[in-house]
């Protein structure tokens, strides 16, 4: 049993030991009972009385003032350390994917595919990847994606016009909603100077008897059907014409007309102007550049034809703010007289006779078949030949069309007699 006096004695001895240790450590004179411990401390210090150890390469570099680690064994070990987490992370990722069930893997693949498609649609992916995804979607699904601006070739740069210039077509208006087969009016394309009615574009115009072929290009005869929009009595503005073809009201298809849903053939194209002087549309429209207004203002008559799709034809033109998104830059247009490429005013030879006196209708381009793009022409042909007249034009339609166009033929010369555009 420990008494308090014993504890007191231990405390005193502890205090003495502390003092003895301090004396031994400080090389002071120590009592005899602490002498062995002082000898032990001296021998320990002898161990520290040794030459300066040779520094390692890394330490030598630091001592020399270099912060870079020189390659040696120690540096190799240090450089291997960051690699471990990467390998472990890859292994962990593989194990996690492998641990997923069938549903999880399918969801993972679907998510990856969705992200890829979204990236391609947004144009984030590189162009080759975007093309690949686009082709894959077109092969797998019945949808046809519009060509992006980057990969949309500009076969005919004469058709490409700068935004704001006449002749541009907005791809927004290509696919218009329909109501009972009658496309809704294009509310997205404001009628402005040179604004195009984004309706169906058959690309090839029906041949007119004896009509001159601009630049010697061949015309493709398309079935002509009387378009109610061209009928002045209809009272409808051609701006509100359907994109996919005329659709008479009440679903009635008169003889000699294409059924509802048929593409606009020939002069029955939406966006075509009615015969001169019969335009009931009071909305001021501007003529394309270089073409004198039909009536009073340069922003007069009608719009240039719109293309059917982004990759079904060449960019025809658009109104202001209706860029097709990625068309080829506008080609420098020659204004020299006699230049077939010229858009100079006062050149009625640039108007197709089938326009029916429609000023502002540039004929070259949308009437010309580009031999350099057969696939585009093939698509055009498919659009050109409607279901009502596959392979050619119905005689009665052609006749009707011809008659009607003939009736409006004198208006062809109207632009030539009209005062030149102020812009000219």
């Amino acid at each position: 049993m420990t008494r308090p006096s014993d504890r007191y004695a231990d405390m005193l001895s502890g205090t003495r030991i502390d003092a003895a240790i301090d004396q031994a450590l400080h090389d002071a004179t120590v009592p005899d009972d602490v002498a062995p411990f002082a000898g032990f401390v001296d021998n320990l210090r002898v161990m520290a009385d040794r030459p300066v150890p040779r520094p390692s390469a890394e330490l030598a570099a630091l001592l020399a003032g270099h912060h870079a680690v020189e390659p040696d064994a120690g540096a190799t070990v240090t450089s291997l350390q960051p690699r471990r987490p990467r390998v472990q992370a890859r292994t962990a990722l593989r194990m996690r994917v492998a641990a997923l069930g069938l549903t999880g893997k399918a969801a993972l693949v679907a998510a990856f595919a969705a992200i890829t498609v979204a990236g391609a649609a947004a144009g984030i992916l590189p162009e080759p990847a975007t093309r690949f995804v686009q082709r894959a979607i077109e092969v797998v699904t019945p949808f046809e994606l519009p060509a992006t601006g980057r990969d949309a070739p500009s076969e005919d740069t004469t058709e490409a016009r700068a935004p704001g210039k006449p002749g541009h077509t907005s791809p927004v208006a290509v696919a218009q909603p329909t109501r009972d087969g009658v496309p809704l009016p294009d509310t997205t394309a404001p009628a402005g100077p040179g604004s195009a009615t984004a309706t169906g574009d058959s690309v090839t115009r029906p041949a007119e008897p004896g009509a001159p072929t601009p630049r010697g290009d061949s015309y493709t005869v398309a079935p002509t059907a009387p378009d109610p929009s061209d009928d002045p009595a209809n009272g409808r503005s051609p701006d509100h014409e359907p994109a996919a073809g005329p659709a008479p009201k009440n679903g009635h298809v008169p003889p000699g007309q294409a059924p509802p849903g048929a593409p606009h053939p020939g002069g029955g194209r939406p966006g075509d102007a009615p015969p001169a002087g019969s335009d009931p549309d009071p909305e001021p429209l501007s003529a394309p550049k270089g073409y004198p207004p039909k009536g009073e203002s340069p922003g007069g008559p009608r719009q240039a034809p719109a293309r059917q799709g982004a990759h079904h034809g060449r960019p025809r033109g658009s109104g202001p703010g209706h860029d097709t998104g990625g068309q080829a830059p506008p080609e420098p247009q020659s204004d020299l007289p006699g230049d077939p490429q010229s858009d100079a005013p006062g050149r009625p030879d640039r108007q197709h006779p089938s326009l029916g006196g429609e000023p502002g209708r540039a004929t070259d381009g949308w009437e010309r078949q580009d031999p350099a793009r057969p696939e585009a022409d093939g698509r055009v042909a498919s659009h050109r030949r409607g279901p009502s007249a596959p392979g050619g034009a119905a005689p009665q339609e052609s006749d009707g069309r011809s008659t009607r166009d003939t009736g409006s033929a004198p208006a062809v010369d109207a632009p030539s007699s009209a005062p030149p555009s102020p812009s000219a």
Partner: protein
Amino acid sequence: MAIERRDGDESDLDVAVNAARTGAGWALEHIYESLAPAVAGLFHAHGVDDPDDLTSEVFVGVLRNLAWFDGDATSFRSWVFTIAYRRLTDERRRGARRPAPIPLADLPEPRAADDVDYEVERSLAAQRVRALCDRLVPAQRDVILLRVFGDLTVDQVAGVVGKSRGAVKALQRRGYATIARLLGNEGVPL
């Protein structure tokens, strides 16, 4: 004598530490030459296989973190031995997990000594001291060796080993008692 030497070392070390924080190369070398032998001796007394290599590791850490140090020479010494103690702990753990035998062919050849008698006596004394230290409990050995090689106070040792001041004093007394018993009663020569 040791006290005077220590004061001189402390003053030089104080200047060297201030200069080393500004990037002076001579100050780095001075710090290493002043403290590396004590750190290596500490490792040697603890029976580390390669005390020089571990000393280099300690000073690599010291020099890399010198910009964040703020204090005088005494604090710097305590800081250096704190790093050395942590490296020693790591070395013990590594050695406990995987003892690495060193082939004889890889051992460095001993350098020739000028005074053979002194070297032999010194080597024998080192062996005896290490035999004594091996008889101590690791905590007691840590405290006593830190106090001897690091010239640290009880409070500084308490900060290094992460114990209270009273615990360090108790460990110190028990270590002293063990050494005294071994030297006196059991006849372990020094």
